[in-house]
């Protein structure tokens, strides 16, 4: 029984970390149609914010609170200086953000060096029968649930969220009702960046932090968002659950490499039969 609980916690953790990392991109891609290839580097910047703040004697939680602010501001500057000139130009946006990604990796390598940094994982372990589970993994699960609920609340229960959903459906009409769509796009991009930064900060104690950290996450993040489809919350949660469960289950019975292969295979099968992602299937049947 304890073994089953521990395994279940492992699967839920895999799902939660996938959803946590993908949430920012799901908003940027789902709301604005922007494929931000620098999203992994926003995650990396969030992780470095925690590493640097810890190195300067600040508590881990202070660094985690700073990360979304720092990366949100970076996202805001990127949107104002690059992205806003490229809306509606998918390939140009991909090229520009790819260049940005390479630039950010190079800049961080030059400034902070290529060596692996890290912060200690807090909380210790929780004993479940004869097994020990990292308490921080439970924190990641809880934090992901809280963040998803909070972001859902922002988009479904606030004036900003209402306008953002309207702008996603018809930007011209939103403008004709007196709202400036570029301001909404700017805020949405900054929010998606801030969420990526926070995800990086939360994952920092679980991983070695290097300038190329984002590359390790970006493929998974894109696969999750693409498999999720247009519905930001239900799509990301559905895709995260499906892919996270498959990856962790296959990793458990074989190796993590096969887990990732299984996840990719699952994504290919889903997109073969549901090109609009799994939320496209729900919409069609609804």
């Amino acid at each position, binding site marked *: 029984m304890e073994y089953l609980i521990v395994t279940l916690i492992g699967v839920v953790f895999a799902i939660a970390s996938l959803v946590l990392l993908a949430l920012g991109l799901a908003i940027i891609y789902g709301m604005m149609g922007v494929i931000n290839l620098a999203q992994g580097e926003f995650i990396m910047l969030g992780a470095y914010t925690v590493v640097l703040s810890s190195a300067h004697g600040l508590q881990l939680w202070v660094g985690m609170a700073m990360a979304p602010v720092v990366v949100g501001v970076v996202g805001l500057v990127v949107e104002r200086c690059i992205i806003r000139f490229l809306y509606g130009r998918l390939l140009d946006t991909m090229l520009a953000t790819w260049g940005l990604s390479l630039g950010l990796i190079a800049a961080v390598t030059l400034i902070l060096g290529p060596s692996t940094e890290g912060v200690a994982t807090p909380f210790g372990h929780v004993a479940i029968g004869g097994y020990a589970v990292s308490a921080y993994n439970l924190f990641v699960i809880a934090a992901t649930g809280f963040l998803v609920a909070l972001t859902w609340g922002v988009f479904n229960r606030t*004036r900003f969220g*209402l*306008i953002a*959903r*309207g702008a996603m*459906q*018809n930007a*011209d*009409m*939103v*403008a*004709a*009702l*007196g*709202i*400036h*769509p570029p301001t909404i796009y700017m805020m949405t991009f900054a929010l998606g960046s801030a969420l990526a930064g926070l995800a990086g900060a939360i994952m920092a104690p679980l991983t070695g932090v290097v300038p190329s950290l984002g590359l390790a996450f970006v493929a998974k993040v894109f696969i999750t968002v693409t498999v999720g489809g247009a519905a930001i919350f239900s799509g990301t949660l559905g895709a995260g659950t499906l892919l996270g469960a498959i990856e962790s289950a296959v990793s458990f019975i074989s190796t993590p490499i096969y887990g990732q292969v299984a996840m990719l295979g699952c994504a290919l099968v889903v997109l073969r039969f549901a090109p609009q992602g799994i939320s496209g299937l729900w919409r069609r049947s609804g």
Partner: protein
Amino acid sequence: MAPAVLAANGLVSGYGRIRILDNVSVSLSAGEVVAVIGHNGMGKTTLLRTLAGLLKAKSGSVRLAGRDVTHHATAVRSRLGLGYVPQGRQIFPDLTVMENLMIGQAARAGASDIPGILERFKSLTALLGRPGRALSGGEQQLLALARCLVGRPRVVLLDEPSEGIQPSIVDQIAEHLHDLSTTQRLAILLVEQDLELVSRVAHRVHVMRKGRFVSEIAPRDLTNPAMVRELLWS
């Protein structure tokens, strides 16, 4: 003569190098309904999109309540009192009726006008929780008009409100337009192909052909089919 709430002078606009509007001037006073008629592709919708700021004027000017808004963005024109109900309604399909109304109110400060608007558009009250895409064409048209009105405009640009709508809803729209122009003193620029609706609500009618106003007629003239045919085709 009453001062113009909306005055466009010598408007030229189009798409890329293609010129659609060619030196069009139009003015509306408070409480006045001015209609624009003409066949498809003559530039009627382009005129409204240019006035709304969704299409940039290549030359000419637009003044709203005496203020030059020619170079103002669409959102600014809207906040200054220019309402726009586009062709095809363009309600937000995934937002509920209530959310569509709330987004119409979102750019305005002060107390909500939604209860007052629902008093006017009573049929929407029972549909508030329904997504926009689940409404009939007529209900969507009423919602589009209501959404525009919660923003408290001085002028409404209304593009083909009768298109694809059942006659009973067209009657309702005609009553609303008449009431809004008389009791609220709203100025309305109505682009419409339904000449009966135009003759019921308009005070003046411009005939548009190939991007130009070719004549101005009285609404009663629309009851003369030979004259209308002559104006539209010759």
